[in-house]
């Protein structure tokens, strides 16, 4: 073992780095969050003993169940919209000339150079009652009164879709890139029409990309509290808002931590579902 270790110093150094990184920046913070969620609120020192499960019980309160369900609903709509836009987008992207592809992907990534909060405020300026969209439509005579866009559920979903769409497109683009043209041609040669080819060949082969995209969109969509704050007018709460309010305003860290753990568990559940579906797909393939 040690002989090997000395023979591959670079590999081991990298592995060590990865382990330190994961331990210090993933495991330790998460253990702290779980630990916090089991403690009791203290008005002065934030946390105190005894250990309790009360914070999790409070999450079952109809008030928070309602917020959670509404957040789930907005995240689901966001994910479906991202998928509906992202799937044909990625498909078309994989089809264009290689020279153009690099440029198009570059353009897809360019918005990341600007902070997402700044971009959220930019969307706000577009959607406002006297913003670009409303004043444009009004001067064209399409509408008399400004549309109610800003501070609505729709505004939050527009913001989430805009911010998260690249996270759907990129994994889908990767699977479309790997999709072998020969398989599609073979399907056609064997007499399958466009629809059966799509359903039985293309969809199953791109499913891993779909699942990866859904995972990357769905959970962040439940946590992006600033989108709900800026575009939803602090009225369309996400789970992220509840967590932020508990930590910053209510100073109830244990409860905020419990809500955060719930979100992490939802993530774990989705990952398990992902693994399960992959295994099932693998068996079908064999």
């Amino acid at each position, binding site marked *: 073992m040690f002989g090997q270790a000395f023979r591959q110093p670079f590999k081991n150094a990298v592995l060590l780095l990865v382990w330190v990184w994961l331990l210090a920046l993933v495991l330790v913070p998460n253990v702290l969050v779980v630990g916090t969620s089991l403690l009791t609120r203290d008005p002065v020192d934030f946390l105190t003993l005894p250990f309790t499960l009360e914070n999790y019980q409070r999450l079952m309160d109809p008030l928070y169940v309602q917020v959670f369900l509404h957040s789930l609903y907005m995240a689901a709509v966001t994910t479906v919209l991202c998928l509906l836009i992202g799937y044909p987008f990625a498909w078309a992207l994989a089809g264009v000339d290689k020279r153009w592809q690099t440029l198009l992907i570059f353009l897809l990534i360019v918005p990341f150079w600007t902070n997402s909060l700044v971009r959220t405020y930019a969307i706000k300026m577009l959607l406002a009652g006297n913003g670009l969209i409303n004043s444009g439509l009004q001067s064209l005579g399409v509408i008399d009164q*400004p549309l109610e866009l800003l501070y609505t559920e729709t505004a939050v979903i527009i913001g989430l879709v805009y911010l998260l769409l690249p996270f759907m497109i990129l994994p889908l683009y990767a699977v479309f890139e790997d999709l072998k043209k020969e398989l599609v041609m073979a399907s056609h040669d064997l007499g399958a029409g466009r629809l059966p080819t799509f359903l039985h060949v293309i969809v199953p082969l791109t499913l891993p990309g779909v699942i990866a995209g859904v995972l990357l969109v769905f959970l962040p969509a439940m946590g992006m509290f600033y989108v709900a704050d800026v575009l939803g007018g602090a009225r369309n709460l996400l789970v992220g808002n509840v967590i932020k309010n508990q930590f910053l305003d209510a100073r109830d860290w244990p409860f905020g931590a419990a809500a955060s753990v719930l979100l992490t568990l939802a993530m774990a559940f989705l990952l398990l579902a992902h693994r399960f579906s992959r295994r099932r797909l693998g068996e079908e393939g064999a």
Partner: protein
Amino acid sequence: MKKMALVGVAALSLGLAGCSKQDQPVLNLYNWSEYMPQEVLDQFRAETGIRVIYTTYDSNEAMYARLRLLDSSSHYDLAVPSTYYVNKMRNEGLLAPIDRSQLSNFDNLDPSLINLNIDPDNAYSVPYLWGTTGLAVVADRVDPAEVTRWEDLWREDFVGRVMMTNDMREVFHVGLRVLGYSGNTRNPDEIEAAYRKLAELVPSVRTFNSDAPRMPYLEGETHVGMIWNGEAVMGQEDMPSLTYIYPEEGAIVWLDSFVIPRNARNVEAAHKFIDFMLRPEIAALVSTEIGYATPNVAGKALLEDDVRGDRTSYPTEEDLVNAEFQEDVGDEALQIYLRYWEMLKAGR
């Protein structure tokens, strides 16, 4: 190649300039957003060489939580809590005492706004600005003459057009006053009654905003609702039809004061800054620029007539009939408020 080298040198010198900045004395100021003109900070730096790092918050709760958390790390040298939080933080021993001998301009302050029961003898706080929270009406859309009471916000033709501040205590203050209770009540039944009253208003509320409460009016999204008087003054620059009204049930009055956190690193600079802000000409500049009332008598005397005579910034005694100062309600009542506040915000 030469160009590249030049760019490199420029970048390097910028980097070095960045380093030398570090050696200059720094004052970390934690303040409300849009609550101090940049001009004032620049002038302070030009005179003293002290660079002010201005960090912002949009609620007392957020400010308090951050100061508690960073208590031992001496992160901030000055903060600007509202009335009732001065009391709370002083009682909890979070503040360093103010050394009056370093404040040559303290006597400029209005005697009626010092030595209040939130901080007897101003041992821990120095007033910065005071203001009111009242009604705002966009006159193009709603006739200001028809809006005189908080209760008018419940009118049916305002559905979807009402703006409330994103401040739990202020919103409950409105609900409590409409029902005839004190805005500082600790009585759970009264708080619950206010919640029920406010729950009827929430479907009308377009947005809650404490970041810049004038913005939803300027954006054309809301036509009536709550606003801070200084925000109304600032908003009138872009939208002259934005009208500020003192509600009959009583406006909410608050006083924001400078405090020094107990572990502040640069206590001397903090005192220098407070004394600088107490200068009459600086106090006048601040009040003119951001529209809140200065507690500085000498400063107020320097104001232009149209600023001093603006009832939005400087209410008459008549305007303040029924008005109430915000007071600390204690942690127990606060948790009750908080619970109902979350129910209000989640309700739709």
